[in-house]
């Protein structure tokens, strides 16, 4: 059966290649946008208790919405194609990035901040040279969770015409073509496992033991 899937993959290599590229492109753009929104937003809300409370509640209620519904909701509002999927995936990636960055920044020891202020550092310097480096492990853990969310979500993008590897799975299930279905599902699983393992390895290399406590669940 796996052999049939492999034959199918070789036979349709061009389509396969463009689907993989599409999947990676979609995930990469979404993660980058989520990072560019999430990190500054997290920094901004550390300065106001009310803003933080509002942002965290909004983000937590976003997390209650299933990924499928977030992607499906993009369809009537934004139509089909790459960008509606990207926007939906940004919504999926934002909560772990925002929450982990916020928690990471908040957990920086008050004494350290006081010492930095005492040394005459400005607020911007403290942020760049003290807070962000100390929050980096938590931020990285957030990115890792977000990356997995986005790769999983990108599979569902197939339902709203976003393309990617999910197309083989949905088409395979729809016409009960097992080789095609596996030709989609196996690379998706390997991609997710590879990214998770790779980022886990980077996390251990940069920050020592991976801090599972920093991770928000899927």
């Amino acid at each position: 059966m796996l052999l049939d899937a492999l034959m199918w993959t070789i036979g349709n290599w061009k389509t396969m290649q463009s689907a993989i590229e599409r999947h990676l492109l979609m995930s990469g753009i979404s993660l980058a946008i989520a990072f560019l929104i999430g990190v500054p937003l997290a920094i901004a809300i550390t300065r106001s208790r009310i803003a933080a409370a509002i942002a965290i509640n909004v983000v937590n209620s976003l997390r209650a919405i299933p990924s499928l519904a977030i992607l499906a909701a993009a369809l009537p509002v934004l139509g089909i194609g790459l960008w509606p999927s990207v926007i939906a995936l940004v919504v999926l990636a934002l909560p772990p990035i925002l929450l982990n960055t916020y928690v990471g920044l908040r957990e920086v020891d008050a004494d350290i901040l006081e010492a930095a202020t005492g040394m005459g550092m400005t607020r911007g310097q403290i942020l760049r040279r003290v807070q962000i480096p100390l929050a980096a492990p938590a931020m990285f853990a957030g990115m890792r969770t977000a990356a997995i969310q986005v790769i999983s979500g990108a599979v569902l993008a197939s339902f709203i015409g976003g393309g990617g590897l999910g197309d083989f799975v949905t088409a395979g299930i729809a016409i009960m073509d097992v080789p095609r279905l596996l030709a989609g599902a196996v690379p998706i699983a390997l991609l997710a496992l590879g990214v998770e393992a790779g980022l886990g390895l980077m996390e251990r290399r940069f920050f020592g033991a991976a801090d599972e406590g920093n991770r928000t669940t899927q």
Partner: protein
Amino acid sequence: MRWAPRHIPDILAALGQHLFLVFVSVSIAFVIALVLGIWGARRPAVYSVIITLTGAIFVVPSLALFALLIPLIGLGTKPAVVGLVSYCLLTLVRNVATGLRGIPPDVLDAADGMGYGPWRRLIDIELPLALPQIIAGVRIATVTVIGIATVAAYINAGGLGTIIFAGIDQRYPEKIIIGGLLTSLLAIVADFVLTRIERRLRADRIA
């Protein structure tokens, strides 16, 4: 809102199927995780193997996992439950094991000194003390599975996902919103109820 008021029975049926899928999956996963967690709490080597395996399953995107199960067990409720059970295992095993490991050694010594055998100690002392942590695991697993179960509709397992998929196919926003909203509501209610139970258990223990 033109569709929903006229299809309340259909919506309730989908909600019922969804609850059934979630309840069956979390229950089966709970039994498996209890065994694996108790075993893992005693043997760190076994624990790391279990966590690596269940962690790997957890990372596999839901649609891909369901698809991988189709050649083995076909379409419908069966592969959906197998898939959802697999997703629960990581959280549940981890919480059972950390709950059991968090018990102070003094307590276990005292139980041994009072003549408790290993089984009685486990059932009368260890599991009740680990219960808040275990319930926390059940809560996280339940909330996760409520969301993922929507995707199971694509492999004919029914549930609230059917409404969302119908909305996508027919470009009918109301169905997408109703399906999505009910699923979110279910997740929020489950989270709330299980958090209350967890808090009450923790409070009882302090008192």
